[in-house]
């Protein structure tokens, strides 16, 4: 276990390096340089001066080496647009994405697992079919369109929920206001994961409920609730852990879209904005942060898998 964990940590570090190199070269090889240098009001000399100041004229390998040296000491440089340290920009945005991602994962888990269990128990019933249909739709629906449609319904027509943002502008902080703003983005971000989790739980439970030990549990007269929950669900949830491992990366990636639909000031929207304005340091910082979170959670679910299922030989 220890050796396995160590190997995975080394793999994760290598992966982060690769992501940083790929991202760095992709963005620094972009024709035209940072978007702000394309400002037509700037004179030739000003552009040259700014390029020199940002040290954009050095060979790219030198630039990467310099960036890496600073990055390893926790300094990701300054944002070109905001004239603020990248770490500050990210620290400003990341919590918002984490709130949104956690809320959506909570919704997926709290709805997906019960729906999957009930579908497995009532196989081929009307309810099962309805849930299956919903899952199919949930994985096919373009989330940005779903978001817009929900805005049309709840904000434009019914006028009961806000159409975007994290809080009402000009109003004092209140938990209720924050929660109201969280509802639609959470649902939209949750839909894909919810569908996937329901499907996995259902098929996991169907397999488990046919096992001999379930028959034994029933035969010795345990109540059905106990059979399903204590003996069935506990084992049926093992494959679900795999889904949890891909839910977090997906919530982070999907955040770019959901955050844009609902003007949510998170890191996904930051990545879109900084990529469009070619704010090199921020693009790098945002991509690495997302990669880091993704890799850490994939690693944790792999470890959890080994802990939950003694049959799995980790290593």
């Amino acid at each position, binding site marked *: 276990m220890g050796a396995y964990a160590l190997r995975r940590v080394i793999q994760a570090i290598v*992966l982060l390096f*690769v*992501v940083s190199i*790929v*991202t760095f070269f*992709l*963005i620094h090889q*972009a*024709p035209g340089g940072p978007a702000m240098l394309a400002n037509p009001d700037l004179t030739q000399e000003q552009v040259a001066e700014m390029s020199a100041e940002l040290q954009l004229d050095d060979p790219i390998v030198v630039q990467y080496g310099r960036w890496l040296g600073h990055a390893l000491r926790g300094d990701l440089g300054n944002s070109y647009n905001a004239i603020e340290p990248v770490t500050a920009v990210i620290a400003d945005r990341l919590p918002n994405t984490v709130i949104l991602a956690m809320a959506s994962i909570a919704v997926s888990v709290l709805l997906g697992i019960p729906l999957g269990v009930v579908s497995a128990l009532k196989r081929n019933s009307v309810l099962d079919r309805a849930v299956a249909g919903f899952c*199919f*739709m949930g*994985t*096919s*629906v*373009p*989330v*940005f*369109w779903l978001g*817009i*449609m929900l*805005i*049309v319904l709840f*904000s*434009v*027509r019914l006028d009961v929920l806000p*159409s975007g943002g994290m809080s009402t502008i000009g109003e004092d902080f209140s938990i209720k206001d924050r929660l109201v703003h969280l509802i639609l983005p959470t649902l939209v971000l949750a839909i894909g994961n919810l569908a996937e989790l329901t499907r996995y739980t259902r098929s996991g439970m169907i397999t488990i409920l046919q096992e001999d030990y379930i028959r034994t549990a029933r035969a010795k007269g345990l109540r059905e609730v106990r059979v399903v929950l204590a003996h069935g669900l506990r084992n049926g949830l093992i494959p679900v852990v795999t889904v949890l491992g891909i839910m977090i*990366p997906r919530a*982070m*990636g999907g955040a*770019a*879209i959901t955050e*844009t*639909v609902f003007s949510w000031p998170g890191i996904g929207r930051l*990545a*879109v904005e900084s*990529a*469009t304005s*070619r704010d090199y340091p921020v*693009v790098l910082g*945002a*991509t690495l942060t*997302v*990669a880091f979170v*993704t*890799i850490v959670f*994939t690693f944790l679910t792999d470890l959890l898998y080994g802990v939950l299922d003694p049959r799995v030989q980790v290593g």
Partner: protein
Amino acid sequence: MTESALPAQGSLAPSRTPPRRSFAAFAWRRFRSNHIAMLSAAILIALALSALLAPVIAPHDPNKVSIFRSHERPSADHWLGTDENGRDELSRLLFGARISMSVGIVAMAIGLTIGVVIGSLAGYFGGFVDAFLMRLTDAMLAIPYFFLILIVVAVYGSSVGNLILVIGLSSWMAIARIVRSEVIRLKGQEFVIAAESIGVSSGRILARHIVPHAVPSIIVAATLGIANAILLESALSYLGVGVRPPDASWGNMLSNSQAYLWNNPLLPIYPGVLIFVSVLAFNFLGDALRDSLDPHLKN
């Protein structure tokens, strides 16, 4: 052997040999009985035809701006109304279908090619080649490649060619894994060993004896892959880093419409429904093909 097991002599001869049916005929029979899949196929054919024929059947020039006719309701002249610039919504949808369909199909073809090559090399040669290629696949799955795609199209421009390329380059992993496991399953079988023993080259064994067996799973993965590519293209266009205005794509039409939700709530419905329906249809088709090409996999 009892009397009843022997049918009457006269009726035996004609029904002795059942009509020979090919694998494809069996698969088609199973597929045909799936109504949702048939409906999906019909919808997709209709969409593909209208995309192909868009220049002929579109009632208006999709990019013709008329400022005085913006946000018109559906009428005989503009069947689905006009957008914020007075452009004909229906014509733009038809031309948008060309983008979505071609990006979906060509990107999938690229991903398919890479996936089949990587998967079969890894599965057939095993050892170091396998370890290296599969680590590469894992790495591609572990990085947030949506962000990398975003960066590429944002900074290198988002011509349709670029979009197809980056989507294709980032969607081969699932296919590589499927092909690899098929190849591993098949390479120990007698007909492969026989081919090896008479000195057939590795490339030929892969191309002629192994990969064809994986075709059913590849077709399924490819169908689902088109759905994914369509979603990805429309997401990028929605974020403003995909197909550039004034060219129409379902994704950028949707993002334009978001600014006018309060005065024209019909506008976002059309492109969204088309994306949803085509993705749904490709997904249903993929599922039905899985059932009909490989009955063992059912459920």
